[in-house]
């Protein structure tokens, strides 16, 4: 499919969601009389984006979308899942454990198999982060609700 046409469809989708959400913006009685109220700019932007997207849809780009291999997409999906998991367990298990687990999982996903790197990289990274953030800058990071009792 044409690259710009795929882009145009995505932009129209985004503009549609944005446009529907404009209705949720609450206006005071007198705000509707103002030259510029909370809805004015969003409406102009939404309309503008739809016009631009339709122009892209009509014109196209003459270039097809570059395919991505299923294996690469799976790897991408897995990494995004790891990021979500990191956020999920961050406060439960603590920043340091969640961070080390994320790094180790990420290394494995990227094809790293050497034990020295699988252990070494997370350990060194978390160590430097702890030194810099906790010791030097005195920034508090969650220790983990599971271990706090």
């Amino acid at each position, binding site marked *: 499919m044409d*690259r*710009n046409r*795929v*882009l145009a469809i*995505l*932009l129209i989708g*985004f503009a549609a969601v*944005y446009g529907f*959400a404009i209705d*949720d*913006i*609450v*206006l*005071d009685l007198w*705000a509707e009389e*103002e*030259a*510029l109220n*909370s809805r004015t*700019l*969003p409406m102009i*932007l939404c309309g*503008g*984006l739809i016009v*631009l*997207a339709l*122009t*892209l849809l009509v*014109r196209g*780009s003459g270039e097809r*979308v*570059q395919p*991505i291999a299923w294996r*690469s997409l799976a*790897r*991408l999906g897995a*990494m*995004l899942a790891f*990021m*979500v998991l*990191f*956020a*999920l367990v*961050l406060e439960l298990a603590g*920043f340091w454990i969640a*961070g080390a687990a*994320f*790094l180790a999982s*990420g*290394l494995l*996903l*990227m*094809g*790293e198999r050497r034990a020295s*790197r699988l252990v070494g*990289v997370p350990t060194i*990274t978390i160590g430097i*982060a702890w030194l*810099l953030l906790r010791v030097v*800058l005195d920034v508090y990071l969650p220790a983990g609700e599971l271990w706090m009792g």
Partner: protein
Amino acid sequence: MLDGILTGLTAVLTPGNLLLVVGGCFAGTIIGMLPGLGPITAIALMIPLSYAFEPTSGMIMMAGVYYGAVFGGSTSSILINAPGVAGTVATAFDGYPLARQGEAAKALAIAAYASFAGGTVGAVLLLLAASSLAALAFTFQSAEYFALMLLGLTSVAAFAGRGQVLTAIASTVVGVMLSTVGTDRASGVERFTFGRLDLVDGIGFVLLAMATFALAEALVLLLSPRDEAPARVTRAAWRLSKAELTELAPVVGRSSVLGFLVGVLPGAGATIASFLSYGLERNLAPAEERKRFGHGSLRGLAAPEAANNAACSGSFLPLLTLGIPGSGTTAVLLGVLLAYGIQPGPRLLETEPEVFWGLIVSMYVGNIVLLILNLPLIPYLAKLLDLPRTALVPLVLFLGMTGVYLISFNVFDIYLMTFFALAAFTLRWLQFPMAPMLLGFILGGMLEENLRRALLVAGDSYAFLWERPVTLALLIITAAILAFPSVRELIGRLRHS
């Protein structure tokens, strides 16, 4: 003025204060390099330490931290495409591609030299023109700021290659749309929060910048985990040739002056300065060189670096002469001055000449210190790119998530950043430019706010757009810049036919 310079030199050139400049620059550079921590954080972290010193010494140290943090932000922009500060976003456009081409050391060196030149020009202009420029800054009201923001947004035309103007404008519009998420500052009404308390404050700049630049880039690298052979960094790699210096000198000169003048305007700052100078240099560059912008152009790197440092000097002017902070960082510095019992403003020069002149002279000294400190570090910093991709990708993702978490300590931001990273990856796959989107996001909020205020002052009438001469002039320049790519294409077609 000569008395003032001597006063400043006397204040700065003591062993203790010189040590504070060096320490401040070093601390600022390290903190600024960490994604998520920028100049404001760096200064805020150093405030307790500054109270141990005399006001002049404390402020001299803080100025060093400020410059150091801006330079540190440039380093992460160049090495891992992670601009942690709005003023260093434009640095990533050409700095990161240069680093990917194995020229990380050269990119860092150019950033160092351009920053030094920009900061020096800024400090000299501040010295020479403080009082007259303060009067100019005072004449800029909301109408002029609105026109200036619009001008800043049109520099998007500078990013557009042939046939890409539409996508660049669409990208800007998307960015402005994202800036409307959160609470409307004028009316207090929530917009596009979908009932979530986490979105009431809007989307964070660092979150969006990290997601669209660093994380999206890491996800692209993830698709092909096998490494390219890393380029060896040699000492010669970061030396600039005479031809390169000759090419970059006028670029740095123009960008420094533009950066300083824009930086003088309260609220405008390093961001607009860096984007405007990037756009200007792209349009002034010869056709062959223009194609390299966004793909590792030396001019494209030098221009925003010189401009953002000159703007930092410029942002001190409204603070010192009018008592109005020119940026978020100078707002924090204002707090520090007030805590010392010093009231910045028109009388600061008379009541505290040592603080006034000491601060200005320390900017110049700080720039020299930054250059001396950072040039030897370049080969070591560049070596970070020797990391294999298997480790680099998870590290960049981890740094990004940590940086965002450090700002708000809210895991929702990590979810949001993950979503934006996926969206940015998809848009990049479709060759949708990200830079105009980020620019639109940064300037969108200020644009609406200033337009609202201008309408309020003008009694809800849009007549201010043509009745105020400076506003009209800026709008005409804006229209000319928007029309320029089409006119250039038309002229090219006519020549061919």
